[in-house]
């Protein structure tokens, strides 16, 4: 009890960053327990349990296949059935949007906890991101099932898609954190998140590839294309994921590099903002 590691904690306005990261490490167990809580709560008292986390990407796949494939005629010349390639796009997008959603609600949804006990506030969005990551891994089962049913052998580089999940989850989390810091003062922003993600799903190469889109546009709307290419942080990561998971897709190194630049910028901004807001947000909620 007394004795042992008698570490000093300094509490003052502005705080100490080193101390914060040390605490974050100390509370890693809490992140684990929070993630586990989210899982066990989700699967207790639900009849189809696990299936819930799969249903969402499946329905999305159906919708996008209908809109882009059947209505707009995308993906006519791909060697894999179009809906399989759409699912390969939906999987990372679902991870991104889940990570973003939970991170954006982290301060308000956990306010009851955060007004009563201290822990580095980053623990909670990180735990949620971990849950989203595990959901994504479960979705791979569906992807492999769909591929198997169509006797499609994915390229060996599909293994590269696993490490890609990390920056995708991180990007979603960081964007979510930026929103979280704003929702403390303007709660209504939370209602916007589903709409933004809905839009994002259609302007990100989830159900199409950028190459195919460029071809379709035939050089028209160059500004629109550039906006989607340079202005959407998810473009490069989506493209890279589909390249890894499917044969015949090309790797766009420039787009991927752009995504990582975006990630670095968003992460830096998110951390600065979040650290600033988390110090005293309890006074406002």
């Amino acid at each position, binding site marked *: *009890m*007394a004795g042992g590691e*008698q*570490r*000093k*904690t*300094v*509490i*003052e*306005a*502005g*705080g100490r960053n080193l101390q914060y990261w040390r605490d974050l490490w*100390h*509370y890693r*167990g*809490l992140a*684990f*327990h*929070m993630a*586990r*809580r989210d899982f*066990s*709560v989700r699967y*207790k*008292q639900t009849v189809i349990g696990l299936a819930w986390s799969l249903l969402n990407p499946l329905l999305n796949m159906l919708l996008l296949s209908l809109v882009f494939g059947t209505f707009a005629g995308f993906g006519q010349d791909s060697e894999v059935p179009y809906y399989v390639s759409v699912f390969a796009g939906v999987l990372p997008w679902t991870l991104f949007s889940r990570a973003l959603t939970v991170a954006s609600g982290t301060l308000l949804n956990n306010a009851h*906890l*955060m*007004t*009563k*006990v*201290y*822990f580095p506030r980053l623990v909670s969005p990180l735990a949620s991101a971990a849950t989203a990551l595990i959901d994504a891994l479960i979705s791979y089962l569906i992807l492999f099932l769909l591929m198997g049913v169509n006797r499609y052998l994915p390229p060996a580089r599909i293994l590269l898609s696993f490490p890609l999940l990390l920056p995708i989850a991180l990007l979603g989390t960081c964007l979510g954190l930026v929103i979280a810091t704003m929702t403390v003062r303007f709660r209504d922003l939370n209602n916007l998140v589903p709409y933004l993600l809905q839009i994002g799903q259609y302007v990100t190469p989830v159900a199409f590839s950028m190459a195919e889109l460029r071809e379709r546009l035939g050089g028209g709307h160059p500004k629109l294309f550039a906006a989607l290419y340079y202005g959407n942080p998810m473009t490069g990561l989506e493209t890279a994921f589909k390249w890894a998971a499917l044969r015949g897709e090309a790797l766009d190194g420039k787009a991927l590099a752009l995504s990582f630049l975006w990630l670095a910028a968003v992460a830096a901004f998110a951390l600065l903002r979040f650290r600033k807001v988390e*110090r*005293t947000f*309890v*006074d406002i909620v």
Partner: protein
Amino acid sequence: MEPVVIRAEGVGKRYRISSLGRPENALTDRGSHALSKAAARVQQTLHNVIHARKKEDFWALRGIGLEIRRGECVGIIGKNGAGKSTLLKLLSRITEPTEGRIELTGRLSAMLEVGTGFHPELTGRENVYLNGAILGMRKTEIDAKFGAILEFSEIGKFIDTPVKRYSSGMFVRLAFAVAAHMEPDILVVDEVLAVGDARFQKKCLDQMSAVAENGCTVLYVSHNMATIRQMCTRAICLKEGRVIFDGDVEEGIRQYQAEGGAHETDIDLTQRERMDFLSGEATMTRLELLDTRDCVYAYEEPIRFRLHFCSHTEIDRPVTLRVELHDSRGAVGMSYSEAFAPQLAAGNHTAVFSFAGHCLAPGSYTIALGLGTGDNFGAFSTLDCVYPTFAFEVLGREGPEGREVWRANWGSIHLPPCILDKTGA
């Protein structure tokens, strides 16, 4: 001398309160039309954004300097709004101070609420681990103490049942059991003991005392002076965000109680909350406490008050006043006036009463007044009552040695003296 484990220097915490001007009136004046309300809200928000700098500052704490040594058990007392909770929030790092600096040595755990983060769907066991992690315990630590926690909580075989099926008593016991086994270097407790039955409360207090005896430093906030007396070795009294006293427990409690000012002597009863079973034939409207400025009474001094009440119809039964006396632990006693009016005409009335509190031990009390008809032999029917109606303080008897000391655990009634019948050889 033990080393200092908490050192605070010039600590202050400022809150911003928005002082809302014109647009607020607009919000209420425009009637109930939903659209105009929404418009007003938008206008309000814009106003707030534009005039963000015109917010008023409110210092919940200012210039707090403290040194607390290892093993001390410090009671923090003060009226509501004195800054007690803010101080605990700063110490437990829930929010940051606006100015100043606090240095803590060792691990600090805070119990500002029992069962923080408990999830109803999870079992008792799962919640123990989750709650432990929230309180900053490592898994190995919880593993090691799980048996002790289970035993302390008396949950037994229900540990693997979802917490939502627990009785509230079981829930609280389990939650406190986790918190009580944290073994931090500094423990911060905010009145969480106001839960559970009396036996469990005592068990919690004993556990906290045991923790303190093990060299843990305890900071304890409470309005319950009895537990402060029982546990603490030092008292810090806060008032309006500043330390007004720091030292001996009895003296601190006296300071806190003598602060007086908060005791009203002219009380408007019309806006107070009421039970819904009242007949509504008469309403108490105002209470004036006579012969006192601060509701602090000397020992055996009668409490005189003038009650204003309004009878809405003619009441043709004799009307009586009931006086219920409470202390911090609950009801102390009850008293009835004689039927002071055989019947009441509709309209406003006043009556002056004198309540002889001459068996009341020194301490703080509240009184609830009830107007009713009938008698106290089971036929009392209540016209109006307000819980509690007013608060007062009784001081100890003055003797040649100074003011009489009365321990809270002796009860609140000074019984009549024991009479000597005869002495033997």
